[in-house]
C-alpha cells in the first residue's frame, strides 16, 4: 500500500471528495489518471489536463505510488 499525492487546480475541486484541493489517495498499485478519477468518483470529462511529477501527461498515463498528480480544471472564460 502506498499513496498518490493528488492536487486539483481550480473550480472543479468542489467535485472531488471533501472538496479538497490537496490530498493523498491510498493505492495498492499504480493507476492511470483515468482509473484514479473513477476511483474518486469524478467524471474524467471534468478534467482538462493532467500533470504527473510536473510533466503534462495524457489521461491514460500511469501514476506510480509516490507520484504527484495535478488535475487541471478547464478555464472558464471571461
Amino acid at each position, binding site marked *: 500500500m502506498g499513496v498518490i499525492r493528488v492536487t486539483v*487546480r481550480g473550480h472543479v475541486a468542489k*467535485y472531488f471528495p471533501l472538496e479538497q484541493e490537496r490530498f493523498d489517495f491510498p493505492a495498492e498499485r499504480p493507476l492511470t489518471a483515468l482509473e484514479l478519477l473513477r476511483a474518486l468518483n469524478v*467524471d474524467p*470529462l*471534468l478534467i482538462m489536463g493532467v500533470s504527473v511529477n510536473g510533466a503534462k501527461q495524457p489521461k491514460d498515463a500511469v501514476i506510480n505510488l509516490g507520484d504527484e498528480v495535478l488535475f487541471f480544471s*478547464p478555464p*472558464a*472564460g*471571461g
Partner: protein
Amino acid sequence: MNGYAGNILRVNLTDRTHRILPLPESLVRDFIGGRGFVAKLMWDEIPPGADPLGPENKIIVAPGPLTGAFLPGAGKLEWGAKSPATGGYGDSNIGGHIAPEIKYAGFDAIIIEGQASEPVYLYINDFDIELRCASHLWGQGALQCETTLKAELGEEFQICTIGPAGENKVLFACISHDFGRQAGRTGIAAVMGSKNLKAMAVHGTKAIPLADPAETLEVGKQMFAACFAKPGFEEWTPQGTAGVTNWVNEVGAFPTRNFTSGFFPKYENINGEALVSRIKVTDKACYGCPIPCGKYSRVKKPAYDVYVEGPEYETIALIGGNTEIDNIEDVAYANYIQDELGLDSISGGNVVGFAMECFEKGIIQSDMIGGRILRFGSVDDFVWLSQEIAYRRGIGNILADGVKKASEVFGQGSERFAIQVKGLEWSGYEARHAPAMMLSYMTADVGAHHNRSWAITFDVATGRDKLEGKAKRVTELQHIRPLFDMLCLCRLQWVELGFELEWYPKIFRAVTGQKRSWDELLEFSERVWNLTRCYSLREIPGFGRSADYPPARFMEEPIPDGPTAGKYMPREVIDRLLDEYYAIRGWDQRGIPGAAKLHNVGLEFAEATIAPLRA
C-alpha cells in the same frame, strides 16, 4: 465614504458642459458600485422609450469600491447604456488600467449624455475636464486612435476608443482599451458613435480614502500570496483562456460552422498550444493581476505582419471554429482586423458565420455581394466581410445590425440559425447537451453571454441529461458572477485558480469599513439582477418569457457529429428549465418579477412600472 472617490462626473455632449456632483450615499448603500451603479443610474436617468442611438440615451461608466486598491484583479470597469443590439439593459466590462485611473481622477461614475455636433473625445485629468475636438481621430482604427492619443497626451493617460464600426453605429461595435482589451458586448460603442464620442482619455492622481489602510495592505498581501500558492498557479498563465479549447471540443461544445456542430476536427491548429508555440510573444496583464490571461502575439505572413492581443478563447471559438478558420495565424489576423475596426469578435465571428451559412443556403447570393463568394474557412472572406460590416457597405449594412435583425431581413428560415438570445449573439459554448449552460445563455440579462453564468462543468459533473438542480445552480451563478462586476473585480482568480470567495468580504471591509458577509453581498447582486430584468421589461414591448428562448437550431436540430452527436434540447425541456428558473426567482411564468420579489430585494420603486405588465 471609504472606498469611494466621492464624486460623479456628468458630461453633456450637446451643450459641452460638465458638472461634478457628490456621490449619493443611497446609491452606495443600495447598489455598491460598478454594475450596480450602472443599473440604477440607467433606470433613473435614461427616459423610458429612449432611442438607444439617440441623444436621450446615456452612457454610464463606473468603477467599483475596490477598484484601484491593493488586491488581485481590481482593475475592471463597467460600461452601460440602453443596448442598441437588444433594446434593453446593456452592459459590458473592460480590464486593462483605465478603471483605477478614473477612481484616482476622483470619480465613482461618469454619466455621458446628449450628442455632440462634431466628433469629440472626453479628456479627464483629475478635475480638469474637457471635450476636445476629435476630427483628426475620426476614421482611425480603435488601436490606431489609442496610439495617436498616447502620443498626444502622454503614456500616463489611459484611453478607451472606438473604431470605424462604432462610428458607423454597428450594433456589435466594441470599446477598445490598452491595445486589445474590449468592452465588447451589447453595442455600447455604437452608442458612443451615435454621440460623436470617439474616445475617453483619463489620468488621475488623487488618493482614495480607505477605512483601514494597514488592514487593506495586509489583506491584500495575503490575497496575492494565496493566489501564488494555489495549485497549478504556474500552469495557468502560458495559454490563458485559450487553454480551454481542447476541453470544450472534447465535451462537444465548441462552436463549429455557425453552431451546426460542437466539434471542430482541426482544433489542434487553433488551440492554446498552437498559440504558445507559433505566435505568442509575451503575457499581458491588467492592473494588479497575478495571472495574466492576455497573450500578446505577432503574426507574420507574406500578406501581413501584425501584433495583436490574443486570440483568447472566445475569439478562437467564434472566429476559429465557428467560421472554420483552421490555423492560429489566420485566427489572430482576423482578430486583429476586427479589433482595429472596433468589432466585438464574439458577435463578429458569430455574424460572419451566420452570413457564410446564408451564402451556402443561397439566402445570400453572389450577386448580392458584388460577385464574390463567402466560404467557411476563408480568412480572406472573413476579413472582407468584417470591413463591409464596419463601414456598413452593401450586405454589411444589414449584417451590422446583428444576426437577429439580419435574419428578419433575409427571411427564408434564416432565423432558425441566427444564433442569439434577445438580439445578442451567442458566445463560445454550444449547449445542446448542457442544460445549465443552455439556461445560462437563455436567461442572461444582456442576451446570450457566458459571463453571467458559466455552468458547463456543472452539467458535466451532475449529468448532462439531468435537469434537476440546473436552474438553482444557474440562479446562484447569476448572483455570484455579476457581484464581481459590482465590485469591479476580475473573477478569473476564483474561476481559474479556485481562489476562495471568503477573501472578498475581508478586503471589502478593510477598504470600505462595511462588514458584510459574502452571502449578504450576494443579496445586492440579486437586487441588481431583478432591476436589470425590470429595465428590459420597461423598455421592450412584450419582453419576458418569449425573449428567453434559444434559436430553433438548438431545439430542433440534432448535433451531427462529435461527442454530442444526436443531441438537441427539445422545446419541452427548454420550457421545464424556464418554469423552474422563474419559480426559483419569484417571477411569474411570463418571466415577470412578482410584487413580493421586488419588495424582498428592495426594488419597491420599480413596482409601479412592472405591475401593469402583470395584468
